[in-house]
């Protein structure tokens, strides 16, 4: 478990032992509850709580709630069994059962405990990383208190009250990881191939024109050159957007551009697809699994996103044309398409660093509203209007690419899982806020740690590497046929499917590749020492 979510990532932690990187059991300075939090915590500790998780043995211990974490230390040994970032809690379900009988105190002065003997409650925590935890808590009142504390703490809105502003991991400096400038670097690289993104033009119902915009798009293309505009909405949706002031580029005003419409779902339909898929995965031993998988439509979204990205890449690479991608705001499906297209075309985006740069550039700096989109995960039935798993859809598409081209990405599934976890609940500031402006107002870069700084520590970095990676300078064109698109079991069934045998297989792959590396080195070393038969070399090796 610990290897899945390293302790210091602070997010969905299920560590069998207290790891040195984790803040200690007693709340540290950072954990000490400020006034705002202490008001929300109605009951801070309960003993004799039973924790159960699917596929793992149940644990009994002491439950403790701090400002940002829920902790369970098993009794009697006191090993920490659970360290859960409360921000990771997506939904709290409570059920109280009264097993005993209620006995009112007989005499007024009796010191008899009026608590219902034998009553208890069960809290089910549905986490944003799709994990489900069950806590059986003795005492109805404690149970209700704990539940409402978790609910209150998990829905604190203020960004600056969130854990990243309190988290100070050892070995990292605050500024580390924030000062990359991937934008500049990237512009130099892809100057010749132009992939542009924007939001929709504000054509409106009166078919307004904007000379400057037309001129800007005109200057991108040379005399007689043509470009493609890929609109991620259907032609009809784009037309309808005129009613609310938006719209598309009319052919008459942008004669050199050819518009293609590729309708990609976003917003509510995408969120509901995610919810239905997670429900289908959670249902045990059901019939017609493929039917349920289909009716969630998730894989259709994956196929559509990949196809559109391939189309953009094809226009750039095969047709040699300039491509402009936009939807409505240019902060959701647009980014999905441009980021994927770059991964397909540009080998430099497929290294661990290059991929971080891609995320920083195409998602974070480009203003994908992470805070709105990832406020709730798959258990958020009809609560938010702004949630949508676009970033998850992107990660899924990247996973599909990694499956079809197992040697071409430098990073493995573990990185994608970690990114998903951190986008929804994190100890780091990287995915906070909705855009650069908000981040600057909240002083995110000054007051929180960067996820990249953590990931790029040599020891940590090792966990995310793909042992099979070998630089591939070519374009990777995926197949988008249904036979080639699979459910990302590692994510959607992470807490459900047994993974031991698959983990063993990866360990075996690492062993094979590392074995080859070391014998290759050793052999070369020996060879070198032999090809220069100078007497000292011989004696050196002889030692």
């Amino acid at each position, binding site marked *: 478990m610990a290897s899945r979510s390293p302790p210091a990532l602070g997010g969905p932690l299920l560590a069998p032992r207290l790891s040195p990187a984790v803040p200690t059991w007693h709340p540290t300075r950072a954990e000490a509850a400020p006034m705002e939090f202490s008001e929300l915590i109605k009951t801070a500790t309960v003993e004799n709580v039973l924790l159960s998780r699917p596929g793992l043995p149940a644990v009994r211990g002491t439950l403790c709630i701090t400002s940002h974490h829920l902790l369970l230390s098993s009794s009697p040994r006191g090993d920490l069994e659970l360290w859960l970032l409360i921000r990771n809690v997506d939904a709290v379900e409570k059920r109280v059962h009264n097993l005993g009988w209620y006995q009112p105190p007989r005499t007024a002065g009796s010191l008899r405990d009026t608590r219902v003997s034998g009553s208890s409650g069960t809290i089910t925590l549905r986490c944003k990383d799709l994990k489900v935890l069950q806590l059986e808590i003795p005492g109805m009142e404690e149970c209700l208190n704990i539940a409402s504390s978790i609910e209150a703490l998990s829905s604190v809105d203020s960004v600056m009250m969130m854990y990243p502003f309190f988290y100070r991991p050892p070995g990292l400096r605050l500024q580390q990881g924030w000062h990359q400038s991937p934008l500049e670097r990237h512009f130099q690289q892809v100057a010749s191939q132009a992939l542009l993104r924007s939001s929709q033009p504000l054509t409106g119902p009166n078919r307004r024109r904007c000379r400057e915009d037309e001129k800007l798009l005109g200057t991108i293309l040379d005399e007689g050159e043509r470009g493609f505009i890929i609109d991620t909405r259907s032609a009809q949706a784009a037309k309808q957007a005129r009613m609310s002031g938006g719209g598309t580029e009319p052919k008459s005003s942008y004669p050199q551009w*050819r518009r*293609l419409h590729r309708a990609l779902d976003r917003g509510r339909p995408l969120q509901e697809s995610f919810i239905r898929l997670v429900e289908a995965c959670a*249902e045990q031993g*059901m019939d*017609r699994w*493929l039917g349920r*998988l*289909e009716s969630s*439509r998730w*894989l*259709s979204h994956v196929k559509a996103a990949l196809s559109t990205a*391939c*189309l953009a890449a*094809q226009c750039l*690479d*095969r*047709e040699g044309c300039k491509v402009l991608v936009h939807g409505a705001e240019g902060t959701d499906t647009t980014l999905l398409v441009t980021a994927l297209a770059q991964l397909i075309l540009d080998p430099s985006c497929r290294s661990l660093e290059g991929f971080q740069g891609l995320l920083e550039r195409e998602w974070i700096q480009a203003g994908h509203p992470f805070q709105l989109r990832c406020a709730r995960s798959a258990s958020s039935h009809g609560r938010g209007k702004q949630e949508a798993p676009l970033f998850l859809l992107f990660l899924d598409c990247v996973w599909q690419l990694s499956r*079809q*081209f*197992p*040697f*071409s990405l430098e990073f493995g599934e573990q990185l994608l899982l970690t990114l998903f976890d951190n986008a929804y609940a994190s100890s780091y500031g990287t995915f906070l806020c909705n855009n650069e402006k908000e981040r600057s107002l909240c002083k995110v870069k000054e007051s929180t740690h960067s996820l990249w700084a953590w990931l790029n520590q040599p020891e940590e970095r090792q966990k995310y590497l793909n042992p*099979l990676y*070998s630089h*591939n300078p*070519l*374009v990777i*064109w995926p*197949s*988008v*046929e*249904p*036979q*080639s698109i*699979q459910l990302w*079991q590692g994510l959607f069934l992470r807490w*459900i*499917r047994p993974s031991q*045998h698959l983990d*063993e*297989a990866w360990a*075996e*792959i690492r062993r*094979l590749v590392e*074995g*080859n590396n070391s*014998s*290759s080195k*050793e052999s*070369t070393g*020996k*060879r070198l*020492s*032999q090809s220069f*038969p100078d*007497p000292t070399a*011989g*004696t050196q*090796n*002889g030692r």
Partner: protein
Amino acid sequence: VENVRLLDRLSSRRAVVGTLYLTATHVIFVENGSETRKETWVLHSQISSIEKQATTATGCPLLIRCKNFQVIQLVIPQERDCHDVYISLIRLARPVKYEELYCFSFNPKLDKEEREQGWKLVDLNEEYNRMGVPNSYWQISDVNRDYGVCDSYPTEVYVPKSATAHIIVGSSKFRSRRRFPALSYYCKDNNASICRSSQPLSGFSARCLEDEQMLQAIRKANPGSDFIYVVDTRPKLNAMANRAAGKGYENEDNYSNIKFQFIGIENIHVMRNSLQKMLEVCELKSPSMSDFLWGLENSGWLKHIKAIMDAGIFIAKAVAEEGVSVLVHCSDGWDRTAQVCSVASLLLDPYYRTMKGFMVLIEKDWVSFGHKFNHRYGNLDGDPKEISPVIDQFIECVWQLMEQFPCAFEFNERFLIHIQHHIYSCQFGNFLCNSQKERRELKIKERTYSLWAHLWKNRSDYLNPLYRSDHSQTQGTLHPQIAPCNFLYKFWSGMYNRFEKGLHPRQSVTDYLMAVKEETQQLEEELEVLQERLANLQKSQSGNNKVKSKQQDQSKQFGLYTSNNSLANTPQEYSNDLKSFPSRSPSQGDEDSALILTQDNLKSSDPDLSANSDQESGVEDLSCRSPSGGGCLPSEDSGKDSDEAVFLAG
């Protein structure tokens, strides 16, 4: 026939023109023009159906579907030619005599002794000894010598020691096709066994003392347990319907100490239709995700695979965990029974998960016990209602297990695909006829070659690089997850869309790791030599000798890691809109399409398997990772196979 067009299934716009040849054994299509002259070979015995479609302006389309799931679409310019080809193929694809089959003319240039050695590779006597029989509970019975009791059983059958010839014969008279209970697998750790038979002729009330004694004898052969399971692999309704025909299932009241259990695996007709439906889904032209998933769901195929696995899991659990013996039957005991017994054996015994052990398993549970290969796989023209993908389902069960236990099997996916291919190819004698008796009469071993020897010779192509005999997954019983597990059963595109290479991962992890493994071994060997030389050098150091190194040549050969394993491919048809837009013809296009390298299930020295006319060895395959070969990335398929994944930009 000249000027025939071969269409690409994934891309209707891509077609190649060439010449079609019909020989006594193959259909051959040779592409015109290009220097490579790609060839596609199809064995007549692989053809499952030929369809002549309505003539169009461009010619007369002919659709050939193969039993190894290849689909070939040809357009022949002249209607008359098309008709002639159609008529000839219909005749050629449906031989009426065994002698017409390819194995009687196939000659791999081996001498008589090599051929005989080949047939000795898999020895069932040896296998029963390995299991630990005969012993104090089990003995070999000669009751069926000359096939006197049961003509679909082998001559040598293991039965409980306490089962006399009288009991066996009596029991056989009370069982469909006289297929009496016989030993399939014996677990020497706890004496539990798996026995197999056909259904009893119990009707509504019939009894047979000898049959009851026979089951009692099986129980007694396992002193650790006071009952046996009787597993009827049919759905209960089917079994009940059989009672009206005087057949049926065991009545628990008549047999002492049995526990009776139904496991609903559907019959061969349901399975045939299910496969048919699934293949229709595989053949859809640019299906949506929904078309595909619904089609797959409605075919019911994966549900059937799961039913077979569940039955195997139940039996393996009874034997390994409860130490209880199991008698398995269906109706005749040669289809579902064979599937279930072999899945259970595979789960129980790591030996069957090795390459040799898997050959032994098929020989034991399928070939020797009279699985009707000829009828099920339509080798000779026969009743189409007898055809059913029974062993295909077993092979898929193995693949599903390989997906769940990647380190547990010594062989890889390619091994399974090649066995499936040869069950239909009739190139080797192993799977001819319906029983051991028929094969002996035909003198198969004297007149044909054994597939097992052929596969064994090329075993390096079939190894799973993750297999290690000391790995935990290769020890003891495999425990697949039971519930919830529907999602564990996945569509096997490597088999059913085997020839649509564009659909598969573009880089083969198996081949890469095999190469890494081989290289490591070579390096280690080299290291040893070098260490030895170093030691010698140090000894002769005082003599101030000079050693000329030849190592530089070698370093090229070991340059695996300085090279790239990157593979090029071309885009699919992502858009239909692009064609109407005047486009620059991409200069790289042609170059790229020659660079295609897809996951290759077909790496083999066998021309029919790869649908190619010529071969490249696995050693050359390595060169795609070496710096020298990096430029053109040769692979067996590149430039030859008409089915490679080329998508046109449009």
